[in-house]
C-alpha cells in the first residue's frame, strides 16, 4: 500500500515494478528450477530495477531510498508470489545500513549481489575468536544467494559462502526455497548488533502478506463474477458475498497495519509493531487463501490453479521467523 504521504512517487515505482514482473516473471517455471528461483530474472531485477542498490546509501554509490520504497518492491513481488531473494536482500541492506557496513553495502549495490539472512537455529550457534560453529535452517534461498548474513547471539556476522555447507530443502511453499546451513569453525566478520533483523523481517513479511492477501482476494472475487452455477454467477450468492466482505475487512486491516509497521521502521515503536504486524498480516493472508481454495471449488484443489500457492505461502509466512502462536504469546506477555 502506498504511503499516502508520498503517494505519487511511490505509485510510479510500484507501476514500474509491477509492469516488469508482469512482463517477465514466470512463477511456475521459476519454482520448478533447481535453485527455486529464476537467476536470470534476479539479474534483470538488479539491472533494470536497481533492486540491489535500492537501499544502499548514496554515499556507497546506491540509490539511497528508504524502507517504505523497499516495501513497495516487496509487495509487488509478494502479491505475485514471485520466487526471488529480493525480500531478504532488501531487509539485509536496511540492516547493513543501520550497522554502517558501508563496504559490503557498496559491493552489494555495485555487483548486484543477492543476500539472505540465516536466523533460525537448527543447532545452537556459537562464536569463538571470530569463528562461528552451528547450524541454521529456513534460510530463504540460502543455498543460492551470493552473500550470507548470520545471526549468532546478539550479533550479526557475514561469512564466506564457500566455507559453509548449504543444503536446499524442499519447502512446503513451492515459491520460496529454504536452505539449511552448517557452519563449522567458519571465519566470520562482525557487522553489528542483530537487534532489528527479526523486526525488519517481520515487517517485510507483513507487507508481502498484506499485498498477497489483497491480490488473492481480488482474484477470487473475479472468479466469482465469471463462474456460473445454478444459472447465475456464484458471486451473486449472498452467502459468498458476505464472506468476501468479511475478508475485505481483514485485508483492509492488514494493509493498514503493514503500512503502519513500514512507517515505524527506524522508530522506537518498531519492536512492538513489527511482530504484531507479522501476525495480523500473515493471518489475514491465511484466511483469504483458505477461502480462495474453498470458493474456487474443485479447481482450487488442483496443482494447476494458483490458489494453493497462496495457501502455502500463507502457512509458511505464519510459521517463518517465529510462529504466530509464539509471537502472539509474547505480545500477550507484554500486556
Amino acid at each position, binding site marked *: *500500500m502506498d504511503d*499516502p*504521504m508520498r503517494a505519487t512517487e511511490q505509485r510510479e515505482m510500484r507501476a514500474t515494478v509491477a509492469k516488469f514482473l508482469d512482463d517477465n516473471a514466470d512463477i511456475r517455471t521459476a519454482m520448478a528450477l533447481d535453485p527455486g528461483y529464476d537467476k536470470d530474472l534476479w539479474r534483470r531485477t538488479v539491472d533494470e530495477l536497481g533492486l540491489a542498490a535500492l537501499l544502499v546509501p548514496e554515499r556507497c554509490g546506491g540509490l539511497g531510498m528508504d524502507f517504505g520504497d523497499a516495501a513497495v518492491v516487496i509487495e509487488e513481488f509478494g502479491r505475485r508470489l514471485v520466487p526471488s531473494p529480493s525480500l531478504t536482500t532488501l531487509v539485509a541492506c536496511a540492516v547493513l545500513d543501520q550497522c554502517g557496513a558501508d563496504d559490503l553495502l557498496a559491493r552489494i549495490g555495485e555487483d548486484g549481489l543477492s543476500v539472505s539472512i540465516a536466523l533460525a537455529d537448527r543447532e545452537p550457534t556459537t562464536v569463538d575468536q571470530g569463528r562461528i560453529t552451528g547450524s541454521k535452517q529456513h534460510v530463504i534461498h540460502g543455498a543460492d544467494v551470493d552473500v550470507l548474513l548470520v545471526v549468532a547471539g546478539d550479533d550479526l556476522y557475514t561469512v564466506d559462502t564457500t566455507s559453509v555447507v548449504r543444503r536446499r530443502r524442499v519447502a512446503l511453499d513451492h515459491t520460496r526455497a529454504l536452505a539449511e546451513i552448517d557452519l563449522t569453525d567458519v571465519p566470520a566478520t562482525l557487522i553489528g548488533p542483530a537487534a532489528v533483523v527479526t523486526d525488519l523481517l517481520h515487517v517485510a513479511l507483513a507487507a508481502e502478506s498484506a499485498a498477497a492477501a489483497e491480490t488473492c482476494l481480488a482474484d477470487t*472475487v473475479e472468479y*466469482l*463474477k465469471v463462474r456460473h452455477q445454478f444459472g*447465475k*454467477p456464484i*458471486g*451473486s450468492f*449472498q452467502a*459468498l*458475498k*458476505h464472506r*468476501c*466482505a*468479511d475478508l*475485505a*475487512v481483514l485485508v*483492509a*486491516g*492488514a*494493509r*493498514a*497495519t503493514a*503500512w*503502519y509497521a513500514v512507517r515505524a521502521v527506524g522508530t522506537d515503536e518498531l519492536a512492538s*509493531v513489527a511482530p*504484531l504486524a507479522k*501476525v*495480523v498480516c500473515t493471518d489475514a493472508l491465511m484466511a483469504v487463501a483458505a477461502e480462495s481454495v474453498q470458493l474456487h471449488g474443485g479447481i482450487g484443489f488442483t496443482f494447476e490453479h494458483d490458489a494453493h500457492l497462496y495457501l502455502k505461502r500463507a502457512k509458511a509466512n505464519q510459521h517463518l521467523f517465529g510462529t504466530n502462536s509464539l509471537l*502472539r*504469546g509474547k*505480545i*500477550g506477555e507484554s*500486556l
Partner: protein
Amino acid sequence: MTDEEFRAEVRGWLEANLGGDFADVVGAGGPGHEHEAHERRMAWERRLGEAGWIGLGWPVEHGGRGLSLVQQVIFHEECARAGAPGRLGHMSEQLVGPTLLAFGTPEQRARLLPGILSGEVLWCQGYSEPGAGSDLAGVRTRAVRRGDQYEITGQKVWTSLAHLADWCFVLARTDPAESRHRGLSYLLVPMDQPGIEIRPITQITGTSEFNEVFFDGAVTAVDNRIGAEGEGWKVAMATLAFERGVATLGQQVGFERELSAVVELARSTGALDDPELRTRVTEAWIGLKVLRYSAIHTMAAAGVPGVEGSISKLQWAVWHRDLGELAVDVAGSGALVTDGPPYELTDAQRLFLYTRSDTIYGGTNEVQRNIIAERLLGLPR
C-alpha cells in the same frame, strides 16, 4: 496552530471545565450509560458551544472553525481521554449540520445552524420504522401537504433522545403513488406539538435509550423540507454517510479504556492465567491496534471515507461486541449476579449486553457486508 498546540489547547480547556464545574459528568453517558445525566449533559453541550468546540470541521463562513481532520480527531481523542460525557449533540452536529451544509437553503442554514453550534438545540433521527429497519426504502410514514404545511402520520422507532430533542429529521412518503426510494421527502419536524407521542423502549440492559415516536397529524412548515419534494432518499443516504466520520478515532480512546478495564479485571480474577482467556485478551489487544492503524490509514489516505465507512463500522462493531463477551468471560462466575437491585449491571455485564446493539444500529453488519460486497468488490446483486 500546530496539531500539538491544538491538542494542548483542547486539553487545557477540558481540564479547566471537567476538573471544574463539570466534574460531576466525567465518564457519564458512555456505552451502556446513555440514559444517564441528561440535564447536565445538555448543559455540557451548551458549554461546548459557548467555547466554540462544535462544528470544528465546518466552513468558517457557516460558523464552523474549518479545522483539519487531524485536529478534529485530536479533539475527540482528548475528550475521550479526559472522560468527557457522552455527547447528546452527536446527531445535531454530525448528521443534521452536514446535511444542512450540503442540501439546505441559505435561509435554512441561517435559521438552523446557530442552534446546533451553540449546543442549545437538540435533534433526533426519524428514519427507522417497525416495518423498515435495514430497508429504509420501505418507509411508510406519510406526509400530506396542506397549504404551506405537511401533515405527518406514521410511526418511527429506535429514535434516541426523542424525549429531549427539539427537532426530528423525518424521512416520510410525500407521494403515495410511488414506492421504494421514490416519493420520499426529508422533513424537519418540531417535536413540541400535540401530534407527537413518545414511548420509551426498554432495552436488554434494562434501561431506555431509544424511543418509539408516533406521528398523528403532526405538522411542519414546507420551509422545513430539505431538498426537493420526492428527493428525500438522496438526502437521507448522504446523511448516513456522514454518520461514519471522524468520531471513530476518538471512539477508540474509549475502546482503549474499556480494554484496559477488561485486562485489569482479567488480572484480578486470574483469567490472564487461563490459556484460553489469555489468548482472547491478546487478540482483543491486537484487534484494537488494527482498528487504530486502520483509522489512521483511512484518514491519511482518503479524507472523508465512502464505502470505507462500512468496512470501519463492521470492523469496530465486531471487535466491540467480542470485547463485551470477553469482559463477562474474564469476570467468570462473578458475571452471574449484578451489583444490586433492580438490575444494576456491572461494567462487564453492561458492555456485554450493550455492545449487542453495535452490530445492529447505524446499518446492521449484514447491510454493511452487502455494501462492501457490491460497492467495493463489485460482486453482482
